[in-house]
């Protein structure tokens, strides 16, 4: 099999192709022009290829998304970049009271094909205002989608789907995933498949065991946490623990719960891991729905893991302590397994 693309390559390629395929696609953001090409280089090369449709903006996240709303209302397909996901708070009004409102409150008579791309996540020592995973705030907002590919998704394909969507999408990238290679196929030790390959934003199922066996534990996670999985699945395999991991790309709305509930009932043991804090997090809704569908079928409570409920410190050892690690997840799995 040919060498897989890294996430940043995949996203970059998708932006290029989307712009080449559709002259309505416009890209905005701070410092995105070549030669710099954006703080995380996702837009690298874009302004050279499409100088008329790539705009570097002043520093004003509210208006970046606001402008994108207006462009979307008038027939364009804007893709706005917020340099750090933490700054999405500045665009909250445009996302919630504008983007997510216009189509519905105008009784479906307008569409709003907006994509707001932004990198979330810690692990780089950037400190409290440059490391958060704030996407949970936008999960559950009616008429707004929140999408986050993992390394087991084709990130570029997810981005193309978001750009093609008629409704606004908050598209979460994870800083630590950018340089990692996507892993889209099974390997000798890891079964990779899509639960719903035809879905707009499909869910990945990974297993560290072969057909005919059933899983010991079900792990539900998304986005950046996927970086721990290749090693984690291997370690668990060494311990002869059969893990099935389910990784939806659509964080909100949640994909239909049935296949997740079936998987949970099958193993009876569930861990949900997310990069942000767990209280009122993405996993809270997931857990609540799983419990609803799995009454009497779980051997033990679902364990949710996420960041400690505090700020994300700058100092490495403090940051490591606050954020989820492979070990945190492993311990949660061992806990439900025992």
């Amino acid at each position, binding site marked *: 099999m040919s060498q897989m693309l890294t996430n940043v390559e995949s996203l970059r390629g998708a932006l290029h192709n989307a712009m080449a395929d559709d002259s309505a696609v*416009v890209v905005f953001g701070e410092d995105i022009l070549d030669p710099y090409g954006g703080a995380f280089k996702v837009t690298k090369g874009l302004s050279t290829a499409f100088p*008329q*449709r790539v*705009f570097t*903006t*002043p520093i*004003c996240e*509210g*208006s*970046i*998304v*606001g*402008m*994108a*709303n*207006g*462009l*979307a*209302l*008038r*027939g*364009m397909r*804007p893709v706005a970049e917020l340099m750090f996901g933490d700054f999405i708070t500045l665009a909250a*009004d*445009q996302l919630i*009271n*504008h983007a*997510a*409102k*216009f*189509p*519905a*409150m*105008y*009784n*479906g*008579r*307008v569409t709003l094909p907006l994509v707001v791309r932004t990198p979330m996540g810690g692990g780089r020592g950037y400190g409290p205002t440059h490391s958060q995973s704030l996407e949970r705030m936008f999960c559950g*907002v*009616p*008429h*707004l*989608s929140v999408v986050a590919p993992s390394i087991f998704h084709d990130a570029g394909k997810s981005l193309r789907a978001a750009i093609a969507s*008629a*409704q606004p999408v908050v598209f979460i990238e994870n800083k630590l995933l950018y340089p990692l290679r996507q892993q889209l196929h099974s390997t000798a030790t890891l079964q990779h498949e899509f639960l719903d390959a035809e879905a707009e934003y499909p869910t990945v199922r990974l297993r560290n065991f072969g057909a005919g066996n059933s899983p010991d534990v079900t792990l539900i996670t998304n986005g950046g946490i996927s970086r721990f999985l290749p090693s984690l699945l291997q370690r668990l395999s060494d311990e002869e623990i059969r893990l099935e991991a389910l990784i939806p790309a659509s964080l909100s*709305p949640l994909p239909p719960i049935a296949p997740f509930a079936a998987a949970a009932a099958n193993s009876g043991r569930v861990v949900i891991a997310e990069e942000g804090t767990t209280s009122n997090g993405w996993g809270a809704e997931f857990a609540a729905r799983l419990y609803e569908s799995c009454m009497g079928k779980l051997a033990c409570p679902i364990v949710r893991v996420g960041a400690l409920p505090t700020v994300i410190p700058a100092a490495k050892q403090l940051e490591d302590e606050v954020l989820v690690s492979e070990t945190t997840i492993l311990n949660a799995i061992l806990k439900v397994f025992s």
Partner: protein
Amino acid sequence: MMTASPNFFTSTDQTAEHFYAQMLLIRHTEQQFLQLFAQGKLNGTVHTCIGQEASAVAVVNALDLQRDVIFSNHRAHGHFLAYCGDVEGLLAEVLGREGGVCGGIGGTQHLYTRNFYTNGIQGGIAPCAVGAALAEKMQGSGAIATVFLGDGTMGQGVVYESMNIAALWGVPILFVLEDNGIAQTTPKQQEHAGDLTTRAQTFGIQTFTADSFDPLALHATAVAAVGMVRQQQCPAFLAVSCYRLGPHSKGDDTRSAEEIAMIEQRDPLRHLELQLDPQQLRQIQQAVEERVRLAVEQVLERPLVATNTTGLTIGRGEE
């Protein structure tokens, strides 16, 4: 001469009587809203533009209504009627009857028709308008965008972000400041330091000023501003000084009787009346009264909007 045809309101005639007729239609419709509210037939709230009709009519008539894009705010009825004259669509929307322009979902503050958009968040629509204008420029449609902002709304930072981008990128947008000197109950002097128009100038935006007391002169200024925006593909800022004759929304007027009496002296409708032939005046008045009366009657006979309205079920809502 003005006819009483239902679409005299959308004729492109730009005369005193035409403006008067449009302004009067807005005035009557707004008064109906206040009355319907008082009668308990209107759920929620309305912000009427009584006293400010000239601004709506003079500015909107300066636009190319086939293609230009308008963004307005909580006090949008005048802009809406000047844009499309759809009294029934507006009434039905605000009264929750069938045939409302947004199926009753939006209501008074969230109107949409064709190229006309409003929202109830002060200032938030400004960058949307910049984006819309940029879209028109990129598509080469020749259209411009116009955004109506109140003096109080100039407190929102996003307006300055928008002016900066519009000026920086040469976006064809007309910012219209409807300066009625008050925001809800707060006089302008308690909202702003310095001068609002020069704020726009410091972004390198050309500014125009006019008084709504003279609708024809205001219109001429608006035509000049619109022409500049369209030809030079750059923003302009038009400050319209005007007066709010009615309350902010319903009964919430804390201004003194003297102040209101003074404001009534500045009613542009009365001013225009002096310029019109009395017979013509009566004819217009009758025609408008009839138009609004029938519209109200007709809309009140319509059923309440059905609950399976499409807007509520699109996309995410289907879950």
